[in-house]
C-alpha cells in the first residue's frame, strides 16, 4: 500500500532543467534548450499523474515520503518530508499541468528573445520551488519554496533587465513580498514556540488533542500567516506589487502571477486551516480582507487601459474571492475556485499575450479593436475565458464562484450577508471589465491601421485551446464532489446544509449580476462606443480616482517609501555610514598603518639580525622557564606560598 512514488522527482526534474539551461544554455542550440525546458515539467507532470493513481484510494492518503533529516538539534527536529494528500495533489496537477502548457506556449512567445535559455531556466526554477512549496510536509520546507518562488518571480519580472520599469517592478515585488514573508516568519516562530514542531500533521494533531484551545495564540499565529499570505497572494494592503509585475513576459504573468504562485497564500491558509478554524476572529479578518480586495481591485480594473493590467487587477480581485472562501471556512470552495481560476486566468493571459504578439507588442486596448476576424482562435478561446470568469452559466467559474458566494451567505450572521453582497457586486464589476476588454479588443473598427495582425503559431494556440476546454468543463465536477474529495485534507465545513431553494436564488442573483455587468459593457463599448469616450474628457472625480488606482502607490510612496529614503539618506548614510562606520574604518586603518611603520624596521632582510632576534628570544624564553628553578628556593616560591 505504501509504495514509493518518488515524489522527490517532481521538484527535482525542473531543478535539473534549471541547472542545465542555466549553466550551459547560453552555448546550447535552441532546440536542445527547448527540449530540456519542456521535458523537465513534462517529467514532473508524469510523476504527478502516476502519483494521482493513489489519489482515489482515500485510505492511502496522506502519503508521506521522508527524504532524510534536515535539522536535528535537541528539541528541534525537522525532516525533509514531502506529503501527498488530496490538497497537494490537486495543486500539483494544476501547477505541473498548467505549467507545462505555459512552457509550450512560451516556446512560441519567447522565440525571438535573446535570453531564451535564461527565460526557461528561470521558469523551471519557478516550478521547482512551487512544487517544493506544495509538497512540503512542514512549514519550514514550505517557507523555502515560498521564498524561492518569490526569487523566481523577481527574476522573471525583471527578465527584460534593460528596461528600468521592469527592474523597478521586480524590486517592488521582492520588497513587498519580503514584508509579507516577515509575517510568515513570525508565524513560524510562534508555531515553534508553542508546539515545538513545524510539521503540519503534528501541529494538527496537537491542536486536535486540545478541543478547548481557541483564539489567543492561535489568533496571533493565524494573523501572522495571513500577513504572509496577503504578500504572496497580492491582497490588501500588500497587493501593489502584482499590477506592476506585468512588466514581465506575458506567459510569466499567466503562470506565476495568475495561475500558481499568487495562489500560494490561499494554499497556505488551506494547509494550515486547523489553526484558522480555531480562531473565528482571524477567519473574519481573512474574509474581510478577501472581500475588500475583491471589490477594491475590481473597481480599479474598470478603467485600466493596458490589457495586462486589467487582467492583473482581475487576478487580485479573484484572489480576493478565494480569501473570502477561506475566511468563511469553505476551504474546498476556495481551492475549487483556485483551480478554475488557474484555467481561465492562465487562458486570459495567454490569449492576451497572443493579442499582444499579433499586434507586435501593443498592450494599450485603446489602440486595438476589430481583431475578431483576424485572430479567430485567440478570439474564441478568449471568449470562453471571458464567459468563464464572468460566471456565465455552466462555465467553470459559475460553479466555483457560486460555491464561495453560497458559503459566504450561509456562514451566518450579518457579516456573511455583507460579504455575499460584496461578492455579488464584484461579480457584476468583473463581468463589466472583462466584457469591456473583450469589446475593446475584438470588436469595432481597428483603431491602429498601421499594424497587420496575424494569428499566432500552433505552438501557442494549442495550449490556448486546451485551456479553453478546461475553462469550460473545469467546473463540471461540481462543488459537492470536489468538496467531498478534499474533505480529508481541509475538513468539510460544518455549516448548515444549504437550503437548495436559497442556493438557487443565490445562483440566479449571481448570474444576473454578471448579466448586468455584461449589459453595461455592451452598451458602453459596443452599441454606443462614444459614451465611453465621452467619459474621459469630463473625467468625473470618481473616474480620476479609479484611473489613479485610488492613489495607493502615491500614498505608500509618501507615507512609507519617502520617510525611509530620507532616513536612509540623512541618518543611515551620513551619520551611521560616513561618520561612524567610516570613521571607525579610518581609525582602524590608521592604527594598522602606524603599527606597520614601527614593525617594518624589524624586517631588515639581514639574515644575521633575524638569527640574533631568534637567539635572543630563545634566551629570554629559556630564562623565563628556568628562573623558578634557579631562584625558586629564595624568593619567588616563598612569595607565592603566601607567607
Amino acid at each position, binding site marked *: 500500500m505504501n509504495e514509493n512514488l518518488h515524489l522527490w522527482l517532481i521538484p527535482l526534474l525542473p531543478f535539473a532543467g534549471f541547472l542545465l539551461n542555466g549553466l550551459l544554455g547560453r552555448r546550447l542550440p535552441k532546440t536542445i534548450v527547448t527540449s530540456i525546458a519542456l521535458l523537465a515539467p513534462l517529467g514532473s507532470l508524469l510523476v504527478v499523474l502516476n502519483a494521482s493513481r493513489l489519489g482515489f484510494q482515500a485510505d492511502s492518503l496522506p502519503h508521506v515520503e521522508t527524504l532524510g533529516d534536515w535539522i536535528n538539534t535537541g528539541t528541534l527536529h525537522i525532516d525533509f518530508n514531502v506529503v501527498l494528500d488530496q490538497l497537494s495533489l490537486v495543486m500539483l496537477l494544476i501547477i505541473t499541468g498548467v505549467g507545462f502548457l505555459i512552457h509550450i506556449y512560451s516556446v512560441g512567445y519567447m522565440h525571438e528573445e535573446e535570453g531564451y535559455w535564461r527565460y526557461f531556466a528561470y521558469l523551471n526554477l519557478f516550478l521547482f520551488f512551487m512544487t517544493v512549496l506544495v509538497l512540503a510536509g512542514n512549514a519550514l520546507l514550505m517557507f523555502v519554496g515560498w521564498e524561492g518562488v518569490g526569487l523566481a518571480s523577481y527574476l522573471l519580472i525583471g527578465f527584460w533587465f534593460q528596461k528600468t520599469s521592469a527592474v523597478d517592478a521586480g524590486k517592488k515585488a521582492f520588497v513587498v513580498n519580503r514584508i509579507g514573508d516577515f509575517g510568515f516568519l513570525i508565524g513560524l516562530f510562534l508555531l515553534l514556540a508553542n508546539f515545538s514542531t513545524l510539521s503540519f500533521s503534528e501541529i494538527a494533531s496537537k491542536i486536535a488533542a486540545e478541543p478547548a484551545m481557541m483564539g489567543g495564540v492561535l489568533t496571533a499565529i493565524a494573523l501572522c500567516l495571513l500577513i504572509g499570505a496577503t504578500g504572496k497572494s497580492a491582497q490588501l494592503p500588500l497587493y501593489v506589487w502584482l499590477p506592476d509585475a506585468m512588466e514581465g513576459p506575458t506567459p510569466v504573468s499567466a503562470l506565476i502571477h495568475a495561475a500558481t504562485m499568487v495562489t500560494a497564500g490561499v494554499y497556505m491558509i488551506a494547509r494550515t486551516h486547523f489553526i484558522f478554524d480555531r480562531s473565528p476572529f482571524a477567519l473574519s479578518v481573512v474574509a474581510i480582507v478577501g472581500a475588500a480586495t475583491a471589490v477594491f481591485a475590481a473597481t480599479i480594473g474598470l478603467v485600466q487601459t493596458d490589457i495586462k493590467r486589467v487582467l492583473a487587477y482581475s487576478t487580485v480581485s479573484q484572489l480576493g474571492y478565494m480569501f473570502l472562501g477561506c475566511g468563511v471556512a469553505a476551504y474546498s470552495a476556495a481551492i475549487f475556485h483556485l483551480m478554475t481560476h488557474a484555467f481561465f486566468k492562465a487562458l486570459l493571459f495567454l490569449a492576451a499575450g497572443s493579442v499582444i504578439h499579433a499586434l507586435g507588442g501593443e498592450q494599450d486596448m485603446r489602440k486595438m479593436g476589430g481583431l475578431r476576424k483576424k485572430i479567430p482562435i485567440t478570439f474564441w478561446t478568449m471568449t470562453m475565458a471571458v464567459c468563464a470568469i464572468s460566471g456565465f452559466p455552466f462555465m467553470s467559474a459559475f460553479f466555483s464562484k457560486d460555491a464561495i458566494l453560497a458559503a459566504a451567505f450561509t456562514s451566518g450572521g450579518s457579516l456573511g450577508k455583507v460579504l455575499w453582497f460584496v461578492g455579488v457586486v464584484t461579480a457584476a464589476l468583473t463581468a463589466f471589465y472583462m466584457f469591456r476588454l473583450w469589446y475593446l479588443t475584438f470588436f469595432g473598427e481597428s483603431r491602429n491601421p498601421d499594424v497587420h495582425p496575424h494569428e499566432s503559431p500552433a505552438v501557442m494556440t494549442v495550449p490556448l485551446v486546451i485551456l479553453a476546454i478546461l475553462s469550460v468543463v473545469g467546473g463540471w465536477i461540481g462543488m459537492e464532489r470536489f468538496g467531498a474529495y478534499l474533505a480529508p485534507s481541509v475538513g468539510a465545513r460544518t455549516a448548515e446544509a444549504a437550503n437548495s431553494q436559497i442556493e438557487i436564488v443565490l445562483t440566479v442573483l449571481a448570474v444576473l449580476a454578471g448579466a448586468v455587468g455584461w449589459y453595461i459593457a455592451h452598451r458602453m463599448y459596443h452599441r454606443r462606443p462614444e459614451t465611453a469616450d465621452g467619459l474621459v474628457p469630463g473625467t468625473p472625480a470618481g473616474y480620476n480616482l479609479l484611473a489613479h488606482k485610488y492613489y495607493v502607490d502615491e500614498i505608500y510612496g509618501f507615507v512609507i517609501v519617502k520617510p525611509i529614503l530620507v532616513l536612509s539618506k540623512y541618518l543611515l548614510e551620513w551619520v551611521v555610514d560616513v561618520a561612524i562606520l567610516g570613521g571607525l574604518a579610518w581609525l582602524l586603518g590608521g592604527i594598522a598603518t602606524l603599527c606597520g611603520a614601527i614593525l617594518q624596521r624589524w624586517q*631588515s632582510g*639581514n*639574515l*644575521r639580525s633575524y*638569527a*640574533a632576534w631568534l637567539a635572543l628570544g630563545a634566551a629570554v624564553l629559556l630564562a623565563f622557564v628556568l628562573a623558578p628553578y634557579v631562584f625558586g628556593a629564595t624568593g619567588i616560591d616563598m612569595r607565592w606560598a603566601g607567607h
Partner: protein
Amino acid sequence: MNSLHLVQNEVPLAWYLVLSAVLFCLGIVGFLIKRNLITMFMSIELMLNAVNLSFVTFAHQWHQVKGQIFVFFVMMVAAAEAAVGLAIIIAVFRARATLAVDRIDLMKL
C-alpha cells in the same frame, strides 16, 4: 660491585651538559658573526649536534631509549637539510658569484 665501579668511574652528567651548551653557544656565535653561508651552515650543524649530545646524555641518565631515537631523527633531518641547503648554496653562488650573506639579502636575484 660491578655497577658501583661503573658509577664511580662515570663522567658526571653536568660535564656532558656543559660540553653541549658550549658547543651550542659556539654554533650560535658562529652563525651570528660569520658572513660566509657555508660557515653559517656548519654552525647550524654544530648546534644540532650539541642538542644531540644532550639528548643522548639524558637518555643514558634516565635509561630511556626515546632520546636516542630522537637523535636519529635529528641526524636524518640534518642530512636531508644539508642536501637541500648545499644545493641552494651552489645555486646562489652560481647566480651571484658570492656567498657573503650581506650581499644576498634581496628576494630577487
